[in-house]
């Protein structure tokens, strides 16, 4: 996962088994997020053995829909070790 100059790319696993990868753009005090340039990865509806990915743009993710939030190692280092 890449990190833009000032923004960080997050991968959010949703409770319905999809994962969303996008740039963290807004967070409110309740933990709801806005991700921009988001890609959704889910089980391919035409072939359950594969994953299918598509771009869905700017998304709002309510806190209660999230199962977990992850970042790649490089991003992690940039955020937490500086």
């Amino acid at each position, binding site marked *: 996962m890449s990190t833009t100059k000032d*923004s960080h790319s997050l991968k959010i696993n949703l409770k*319905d088994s999809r994962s969303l990868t996008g740039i963290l753009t807004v967070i409110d005090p309740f933990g709801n997020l806005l991700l921009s340039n988001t890609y959704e990865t889910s089980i391919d509806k035409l*072939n359950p053995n594969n994953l299918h990915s598509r771009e869905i743009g700017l*998304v*709002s993710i309510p806190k209660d829909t999230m199962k977990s939030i992850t970042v790649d190692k490089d991003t992690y280092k940039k955020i937490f070790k500086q």
Partner: protein
Amino acid sequence: MCNPLNIEDIDKKHTISEDHEDDIIDDQYIDITNDLFNSLSLITDHQVVKSDYFNLLEGTRAIEVLNPRLDTALIKLQPSDLSFNTNDKQSIDNVISIQNKLFQLLMSWLNNSSLPVTVLSCRYIQTLLENYTFTRNQGSKNLLDQCSFKNLRFFETKEMQDKNQSLDDDVEYQLVHKVLKIFSIAITKFIGICITIGVNVLYEEEDINTRNMNLDFLTEVDEEIVIEQIDQCSEWILTLNLQDKSDILISQLNLSKYLLKIVTILNHKVNLTEPTEDNLHLVEFLLKAKQIINVLKVQDNTHQPPSGSFSTFIQLDLDNKNIPSEIYEISWEDSWNSLSRLFNNILSYFKSSNALTNHQQLQNFLKYDISYNIENFNVMARGVFQLYIIRDDKSMFGSPNVNLSTYVIEEIESIVGGNIMILKSLQQPDINKSILERIEPLLQDLENSGYHNLTIYAQNPCRQQQLTSKALLLWDTLQVSWEAFEFEVYSTFKIGEEISEGVPTLPISTFIYYTKLNLMIDLAMNGIALDIYQDFEIYVIYWFSTYLLNLLIELVNTRLTSNINQKITYIEKGFPKKIKKLKAGPKKEQLKLQNQINNQEVLPKLIKIQRFNHEYLLNGWSALKELLESVSCYLIVLSSFRLIPVFKDELIFKLRLKPWSSIGVPNLPSFAEYKNSLKFDNSNFDNTKQILTQVKLKLNNTLGLYKQLIHEIENNESFNEFWVNNEQILLWYHQLSSTVKSYSQELDQFVAILNDNKSNLNSLSTSYKVQISTGHHRHFPTIKVIKRK
């Protein structure tokens, strides 16, 4: 939400515990769920933390996940939507119905919808485009291979694969992989053409929606190759024994082919100075397309496409930044009518443009056949027209003789007459350099403004209004610069025509003023058609339009007429005298030649302009002025009884006339003049009746003027040189004529109401009200006094 913090700041402020090894969920990703949510405690005062580069307003269009109304991933599909395999064979009835449905959805898209809910809802189109994108990147060159219907994502057992391989000789399998495939390619390619035209000359969302789900609509494929494949496929169909159904298949294929051929009209060159004959064979396909539509329209459409072949599947499957939507489909009849209109519109302007021989015809064609008729145009016909009228090489209609520069000069000459001295001086070898240096950018500005006007005609009515408003600024600026220039050239170099001794005509400034006045009136009156005025604003618009119309009539009656008369007199008398005075020699011979040109070419054009102005334009304007004055007077009387509001506030006056307020010449009339125009005392019943009788007489007079004009348009053969087709012009004047009759009746009814309520006129508004509704003509609504319920 309060002042947003910077999201990066929060990251820096937050100190995380050293040990995060438990958070690592795989080799690549580390779980930060707890860290992130714990960091929220650092947000104070309920602030929202956001990236510096993000505008919170943008957040309103974010799609909320797991919200069924917003999240396309939650779209509920039928099992058949998921199991539908585009690789499977289909019966001929299925193929026909799929192709019919694609025509229907294509026209639904062009009826202001989007691709994902129309054509892209077809699984064949989706599969084709996905495969095209994939195989093109793999370097495959064969179009039919690139656009396979075999869904590479579909899970296929070995048994299924073997079964499909054995189907190669199956007719139903070939109907899908030969016929439906090339048909789908043609439709997709046409959509690609539409998107290109839409992006270049139409307005996104309001004319066309080019949202393409990041799919490439065969942009690199040459339509000629597709047409060739269609013809081959049609030949193959004829080898099968499909009875009458082969006719339908071939008709569908041909219709898709004719859609692709539409853009070929952009290669056709129109002469513009004489009728371009024998050109109909070039657009024979447009006629054939109309015939095919008439056949397809009446076919039995009860057979539905196979279940799952059209669905909302693509919305949850491919790149999609929008919310879930139902498939949008206009009715069977509407879709064929819309398709027929597309071909008909193009055929109509192709034929008319090829008959054009002079500027008056061109102007009337653009105004009545295109601009005022634009709501009857299919959106792609409008788009193609923009490219048809002004070609890439700046030629008009591809004419070898007329480009944008010469068009503007011809337009000037069609208003103020030819032989304009300042323009003629450009051809003199000894022209003063300072004139040359200054006139070139001015001519360029003139050309740019002329181009701007040409882009107005085929736009949607709202855009026409916006572009007209912009044009006012352009032409007003032009008038300032040209007036100063023409006057200076006249005073310094004595170049330019004179109205009288020492008074210059300023022909180009006159033309600019003429154009500007017309635009100002258009802007005012077209607002009525767009219904942008409140009821209480209609009076001021009619009053202001009358003011502008008076100026226009005066301009044509005085300055333009005397200017052209002078030119005629000079050619008929002044120039021959000049020749007579010269001794025999080469100069005399040269002038004699010029005299011949003057008499054969310039003089007939000048006489034609005079005739056009006096026999057509001024008569039409005089009738319009009478009508405007009558309606204005009627409105004043209605407002005096408080039946219709008319504002008397200066602020509203200024606000309403703001679009014209920046214009230097003519000045806006003052508020005092407006207020004065409203003065009417209804206390004397007989006086009121007398005024209304006068309005009625004026309307009768107006009706007579329109009848006369219609008679001339219909019967005066010499009028034919002013237009190539009088259908729309006649419609325009017939509608105005009906408007006059309608106002006359409404006036009678109002007088009857006044008579019935003679004793109680002061409280007339408590029992009656005015109802304003769509009228016979776009510029004049019906204004009816009705009893309150």
